[in-house]
């Protein structure tokens, strides 16, 4: 079942609708490192996190890492994966490098970690939009049979954060366009260990905010709110998540 956006009670920009439908269809297909069933499992876990009692207690605690217990979970994923999904969904502002290191030490590949982050973020983002405009959340897509290539990007190196990324200067001809127009902000680079997955996620994000935030005000862009209102919402949502990137 698709997202049924044609039945939405409010109009949205065509590019947003197309990107949402594309992202939802891709969610059920094999990614770079995870198969479709696992990706849908991660998405289901991201939704489950909002009703997790342990996450509630961790969120309320002075230090979320001082609160032990078992997450309320779907049962589809290994425990370390569940912890990544839940903490990222519910308390992302207090994630630490030690948390990242523990995730990898648990046996998950760095590439798997990045795809878990991407799918969790995608699900949370789409759900936030649906909640916002007053639509019921779409049912998760059916998983499509197929295997991921699971090929490590050889040009990726650790940095500028904790994980390996592809630097603009190291990008091959099949990925250099992702950094076109000098848009190589670190945030855009963050998940590039998985180049195809990165493209999939940013195809949606570009439509929700601005493809190039350096534009002067909203020259040539179709928006019903001003640039100042956009940036206020951006800053406020970031602050509410405890992020000051």
């Amino acid at each position: 079942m698709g997202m049924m956006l044609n039945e939405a009670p409010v109009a949205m920009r065509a590019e947003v609708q197309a990107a949402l439908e594309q992202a939802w269809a891709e969610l059920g297909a094999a990614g770079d490192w995870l198969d479709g069933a696992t990706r849908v499992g991660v998405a289901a876990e991201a939704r489950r996190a909002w009703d997790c009692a342990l996450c509630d207690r961790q969120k309320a605690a002075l230090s979320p890492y001082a609160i032990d217990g078992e997450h309320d979970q779907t049962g589809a994923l290994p425990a370390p994966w569940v912890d990544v999904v839940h903490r990222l969904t519910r308390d992302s502002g207090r994630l630490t490098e030690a948390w990242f290191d523990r995730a990898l030490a648990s046996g998950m590949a760095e590439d798997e970690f990045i795809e878990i982050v991407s799918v969790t973020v995608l699900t949370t983002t789409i759900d936030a939009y649906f909640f916002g405009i007053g639509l019921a959340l779409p049912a998760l897509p059916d998983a499509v049979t197929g295997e991921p290539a699971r090929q490590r990007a050889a040009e990726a190196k650790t940095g500028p954060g904790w994980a390996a990324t592809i630097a603009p200067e190291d990008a091959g001809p099949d990925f250099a366009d992702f950094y076109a127009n000098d848009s190589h902000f670190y945030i855009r680079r963050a998940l590039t260990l998985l180049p195809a997955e990165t493209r999939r996620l940013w195809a949606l994000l570009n439509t929700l905010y601005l493809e190039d935030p350096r534009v002067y005000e909203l020259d040539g862009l179709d928006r019903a709110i001003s640039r100042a209102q956009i940036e206020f919402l951006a800053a406020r949502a970031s602050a509410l998540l405890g992020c000051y990137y």
Partner: protein
Amino acid sequence: MRLRVSGQDTGDDYDLDAVSGDAAGAGSIPAGVALNAFAEAICERDPAGIAAARQALVADLGKAAMVDAAAVIAGFNAYPRIADATGIPLEDAKHQATADLRAELGLDALNQSAD
């Protein structure tokens, strides 16, 4: 912070404390109070709060603005999580350019915990 840049571009003066505190200064942004309530309710997954804030925002700015606001808030449910999950730092140039702003808002005191 691009809100400050936007204000400089247009000659408007915005209360930047509104983004990090209790948003009392949101009134310096057109329809800021309604926008803030909408952002808070969505980020907190508060269905009743979202419904009320949506209604208020539509009354203030109209449906199209509400839909565009939801899109921005949704997008900024992604960027912070991506940055925080991967430890992405501020770019050097951005770090220097926002030094005054970070001091003004007290942001450097945050996210210092190792675990």
